[in-house]
């Protein structure tokens, strides 16, 4: 398919369709509305099912049903709506079902605002709901990457039988950029003999369930999940590295913020300050080793986590750096998006002018 | 002639069947204890059974099979 100019939300929806998603359950909430709207136009064209649910809670439980029946299924929402879905996501994780959940993050807490933010980092990377589980979290920094990560999210969900979160933000969802859909190479996925498609009298019933009333059984299930997470961490951890060899200041930033930091790097070059960037693409599993490796370079005098929040990923950066270098935070919150100059000045001020 | 077979170890001794038998021949056997520790229900006079299956209809644990 040729390149076309598309709004992030719509590109994400089209990417899901291209990935073979034929069931979408959603609910209106700004700034992700174009995803259900687009699905309501497109799904009938591919004899798929778009259904607007009565709430985000109902939508995620429709996803649970459809996933258990073996379908490639997606829902999307924004921060408060994603909060409502957490119990459902925990059930999907516990029942080891594949599903894709798109969060176009907005400012919080509470009703918050509708501008872009990254204040759902903890909610996304710490499971988000109750119990010992994780979700795979992919953080695109462009509309093209959002398309490719959404398509891959369906393969990852099927391969590992896990809910996968595509974590965008209001900017990625609302801006238009040229996209191409054919670039993503589909991965091998296992078939779904576990799905509840009806015994047809030929097999024992398949039971889609996350209840294990006997603690020994529940522990076994949790260990099974943990083993899957270790495998995911080993195989799927991903980060983009920019200008980080022998840099003096290492910045860790993802999504929209990482794009702004690429301009901060240029300002540094003009001022003779080498600034490097590590951009986590998988927020969970977090690229700790990569960050540790680059932070321990003798050239690095300080590490920064720059986020559209009051500091959440900074915790993981500190864990990764493990005290080897000082780790600082800079960010704006509430939907305010900082300019490169602002970030540069605050980074330099904090590190005492680097030279 | 009809016959009632009670799965005595599945019975929980709730007694519902004893209240609906038109011939009043279903009773809890106070002299016996099943593996769950309940007094199982039993037909005390099979000859009187008319095979109406009322007992089986109301049995919550579907322990009763009826033949006629």
């Amino acid at each position, binding site marked *: 398919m040729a390149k076309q100019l598309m709004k992030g939300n719509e590109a994400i929806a089209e990417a899901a369709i291209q990935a073979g998603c034929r*069931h979408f*359950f959603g609910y209106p909430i700004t700034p992700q509305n174009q995803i259900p709207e687009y699905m309501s136009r497109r799904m009938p064209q591919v004899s798929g*099912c778009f*259904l607007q*649910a*009565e*709430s985000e*809670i*109902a*939508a995620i*439980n*429709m*996803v*649970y*049903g*459809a*996933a*258990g*029946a073996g379908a490639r*299924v997606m829902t999307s929402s924004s921060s408060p709506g994603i909060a409502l879905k957490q*119990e459902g996501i925990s*059930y999907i994780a516990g*029942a080891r079902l594949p599903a894709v959940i798109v969060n176009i993050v907005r400012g919080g807490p509470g009703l918050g605002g509708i501008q872009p933010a990254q204040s759902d980092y903890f909610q996304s990377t710490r499971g988000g709901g109750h119990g010992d589980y994780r979700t795979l979290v992919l953080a695109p920094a462009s509309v093209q990457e959002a398309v490719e990560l959404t398509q891959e999210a369906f393969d990852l969900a099927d391969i590992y039988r896990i809910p996968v979160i595509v974590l965008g933000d209001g900017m990625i969802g609302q801006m238009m950029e040229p996209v191409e859909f054919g670039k993503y190479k589909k991965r091998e996925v296992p078939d779904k003999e576990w799905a*509840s*498609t*009806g*015994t*047809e*009298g*030929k097999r024992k*019933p398949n*039971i*889609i*369930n*996350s*209840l294990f009333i006997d603690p020994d059984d529940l522990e076994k299930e949790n260990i099974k999940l943990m083993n899957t997470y270790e495998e995911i961490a080993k195989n799927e951890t991903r980060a983009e590295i920019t200008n980080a060899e022998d840099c003096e200041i290492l910045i860790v930033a993802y999504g929209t913020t990482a794009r702004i930091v690429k301009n901060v790097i240029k300002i540094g070059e003009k001022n003779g300050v080498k600034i490097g960037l590590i951009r986590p693409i998988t927020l969970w599993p977090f690229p700790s080793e990569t960050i540790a490796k680059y932070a321990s370079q003798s050239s690095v005098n300080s590490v920064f986590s720059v986020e559209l929040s009051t500091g959440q990923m900074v915790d993981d950066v500190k864990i990764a750096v493990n005290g080897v270098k000082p780790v600082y935070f800079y960010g704006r919150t509430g939907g305010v998006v900082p300019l490169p100059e602002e970030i540069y000045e605050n980074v330099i001020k904090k590190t005492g002018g680097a030279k | *002639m*009809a016959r009632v077979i009670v799965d005595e170890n*599945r019975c*929980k*001794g*709730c*007694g*519902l069947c004893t*209240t609906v038998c038109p011939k009043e021949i279903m009773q809890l056997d106070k002299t016996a204890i099943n593996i*769950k520790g*309940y007094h199982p229900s039993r037909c005390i006079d099979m000859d009187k059974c008319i*095979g109406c*299956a*009322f007992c089986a*209809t*109301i049995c*919550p*644990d*579907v322990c*009763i*099979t*009826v*033949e*006629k």
Partner: protein
Amino acid sequence: MATVFKRTEMLVDVPQHYCPGCTHGIAHRLVAESLDELGVGGRSVGVAPVGCAVFAYNYFNCDMHEAAHGRAPAVATGIKRVLPDNIVFTYQGDGDLASIGTAEIVHAAARNENITVIFINNAIYGMTGGQMAPTTLPNQVTTTSPYGRDASHCGMPLKISEMLSTLDGTYYIERAALNTVKNIKNAKKAVKKAFQNQVENKGFSLVELLSTCPTNWGMTPIEALKWVDDNMIPYYPLGVYKDRGEGELK
């Protein structure tokens, strides 16, 4: 001799955990027999609630989902939209359907989802130990209405069948009871019809079954049957509340 009555194979042959005399077991039989007699067990997918019937997924001999509390109608919607030719049903208690799950049941009904809902109304939360439910009767004592349900404090019980029958989308809604042989036989007709409707793609069918909870009502199983007659049926009259197929030639 011929067999007049025997256990259906659509019930898995395992003991059920329900309390002695609890009529959940009868409701399970009616559902299982209906699937068996309609010959649809092989393409059925059931959705179990959270409540005493949470383990129903071990008892029905068909594919099952265990849903989050109250969300079975949404789960069933998801399944049915993926497998339109399968027979999809939910089996829910009153805490599940009439309390936390009211939005889900109202909207599944309003959408006329082609599913079958079996709604067990025993006027109490059983699994969690006898708390007041939205269907608990006025003055009924429970562990969270120890002085008897006071309508001036927490309102009157919900009449789900009447409520849902006002939704144009719904196809068939009947309330039956499990406390006498006559009522059980009628309940069986209603349950089977509710599944027949789905087989014929007619739309949303719900059967509300008045049921007992001897343990949490603090009664013997036999007294509980009588309590349904004396207290529940007057407040929850039995009968067909919606049958869009009435005029149709069968």
